[in-house]
């Protein structure tokens, strides 16, 4: 039984040493290089005084980024990845919640690292990679490691305006990757196509599957996802066989007619997640890439990215709503009603999840952790933690889970989890903003901000870009003289949803 993800890397046989594991548009790196460089980074970190805090990584989408993660694991620490292309304000607020002793950045982000974590020591990734490997020290670290040690902290949108740091253990990560690889049938012949930023939960597959399965992974440039013809060319040039993408990444090529241009010839395994897949989009993909396996995945970061999967076993109809399927191996997924009682087959309840894939909690947030990860209310006999997802579901008679939306104001947009409240908190920081309300127009697939105040929509957009990632900035900003209200004084969100521009 494995107890540390690095054992996956270390059991790489010699005949795979020269195989390319990660590739981006500028560089590629082999298994052997990853093994050597990550040990060098780990040894380099161990030259410094030990800290029990996570080490922050400031980087972006390139082949060396996973190597830095592995180096930190070698040094016996857990890593908190941050994409340096995010707004400084957001990076700084996350760094503040971690209060790291060390931050590792590559050359592009030295300055940003100093700005967002002025009290942390900056370790330069390029210099760490040149450190001499000290097997003895690395061995000593490993000898006291446990499978339940924290592996990484990934930040996700929080409704109060502060992102939440979800802590995941080696055990949880390995459980999920094992289960995913089994469902998708991935092996060393596969080439994965990475879509997600590497600090985001969806990227854990693209980072860890290659070391487990001896597969390769190509980091597809972000712009290609706006330019579907370029995207399909890249899939064919790199002979990409397997992708785990957000629904939006599959929607854009289908709706923009990319299949009239060409077809991804090598793609055989397609997993999508992040939001509900429109039947008409999947139908287009199935028509043009007919012999691929399509899997609908559902699950939150708090359960290591996932809960359930559904293998699509038929040609879908345009208006079909896919189920979210069955729990992955080692996952316990069940429904509770408002009184925390189990829900009978066919009825709706809140989707709850438990098992070794459960996160260790939120970093530096004991109260939020205690509130979110709770004792299973139907178990009075021993300690059993579960996470309540805030999603509604129902089981059918075949044991297949169906999804029925959120219980609160969290949405999924372009594959990302977005708390509409977090956008409002950010918008209220804009000067001369009186009041605002953010709604999601699901018909147009658009986040809309309504506000009252003397500020202009331009000022709001400029300010929001300083504090929020691009996908959270509303592309429709509408000034009103008065907010529509319900008789109890609350903002009438339904009226805003029905708002029609009189232009």
């Amino acid at each position, binding site marked *: 039984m494995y107890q540390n993800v690095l054992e996956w890397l270390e059991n790489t046989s010699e005949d795979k040493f020269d195989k390319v594991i990660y590739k981006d548009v500028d560089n590629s790196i082999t298994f052997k290089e990853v093994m050597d460089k990550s040990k060098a980074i780990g040894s380099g970190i161990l030259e410094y005084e030990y800290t029990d805090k996570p080490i922050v990584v400031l980087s972006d989408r390139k082949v060396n980024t996973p190597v830095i993660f592995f180096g930190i694991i070698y040094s016996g620490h857990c890593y908190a990845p941050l994409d340096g292309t995010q707004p400084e304000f957001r990076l700084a607020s996350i760094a503040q919640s971690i209060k790291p002793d060390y931050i590792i950045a590559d050359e592009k982000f030295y300055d940003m690292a100093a700005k967002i974590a002025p009290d942390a020591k900056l370790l330069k990734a390029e210099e760490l990679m040149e450190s001499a490997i000290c097997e003895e020290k690395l061995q000593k670290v490993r000898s006291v490691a446990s499978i339940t040690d924290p592996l990484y902290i990934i930040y996700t949108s929080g409704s109060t305006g502060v992102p939440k740091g979800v802590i995941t253990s080696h055990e949880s990560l390995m459980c999920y990757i094992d289960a995913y690889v089994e469902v998708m049938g991935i092996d060393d012949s596969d080439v994965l196509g990475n879509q997600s930023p590497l600090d985001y939960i969806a990227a854990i597959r693209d980072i860890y599957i290659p070391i487990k399965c001896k597969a390769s992974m190509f980091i597809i440039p972000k712009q290609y996802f706006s330019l579907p013809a*370029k995207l399909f060319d890249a899939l064919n040039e790199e002979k990409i066989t397997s992708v785990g993408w957000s629904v939006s990444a599959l929607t854009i090529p289908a709706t923009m007619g990319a299949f009239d241009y060409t077809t991804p010839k090598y793609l055989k395994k397609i997993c999508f997640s992040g939001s509900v897949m429109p039947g008409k989009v999947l139908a287009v993909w199935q028509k043009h890439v007919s012999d691929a396996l399509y899997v609908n995945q559902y699950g939150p970061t708090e359960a290591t990215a996932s809960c359930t999967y559904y293998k699509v076993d038929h040609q879908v109809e345009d208006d079909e709503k896919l189920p979210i399927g069955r729990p992955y191996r080692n996952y316990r997924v069940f429904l509770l009603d408002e009184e925390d009682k189990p829900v009978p087959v066919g009825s709706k309840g809140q989707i709850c999840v438990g098992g070794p894939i459960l996160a260790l909690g939120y970093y530096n947030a004991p109260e939020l952790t205690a509130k979110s990860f709770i004792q299973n209310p139907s178990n009075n006999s021993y300690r059993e933690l579960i996470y309540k997802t805030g999603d509604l579901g129902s089981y059918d008679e075949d044991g297949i889970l169906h999804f029925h939306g959120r219980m609160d104001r969290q949405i999924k947009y372009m594959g990302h989890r977005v708390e509409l409240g977090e956008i409002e908190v950010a918008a209220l920081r804009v000067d001369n903003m009186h009041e605002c309300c953010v709604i999601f127009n699901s018909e147009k697939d658009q986040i809309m901000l309504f506000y009252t105040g003397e500020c202009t929509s331009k000022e709001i957009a400029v300010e929001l870009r300083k504090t929020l990632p691009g996908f959270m900035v509303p592309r429709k900003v509408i000034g009103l003289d008065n907010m529509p209200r319900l008789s109890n004084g609350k903002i009438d969100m339904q009226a805003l949803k029905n708002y029609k521009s009189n232009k």
Partner: protein
Amino acid sequence: MRDELIEILEEIRPDVDFENEENLITDGILDSIDVVSLVGEIDEAFDVQIHVEDLTPDNFNSVDAIIALIEKIQDED
């Protein structure tokens, strides 16, 4: 056409100085959310159909490039 296009662009991204940007796509200023919104709005406003082959960085890097693309498509019709 230019004014109408800039109005469309500024509605989607009021924070960008479209008159002076020459690398809207190459520099990642416009992301996929922006491009998808933009293509829909252009198709509607100028009664054209932008095809997937037209979605290249060169065609979308600047206001002038987008105008050239729209005019090219209009001429072909």
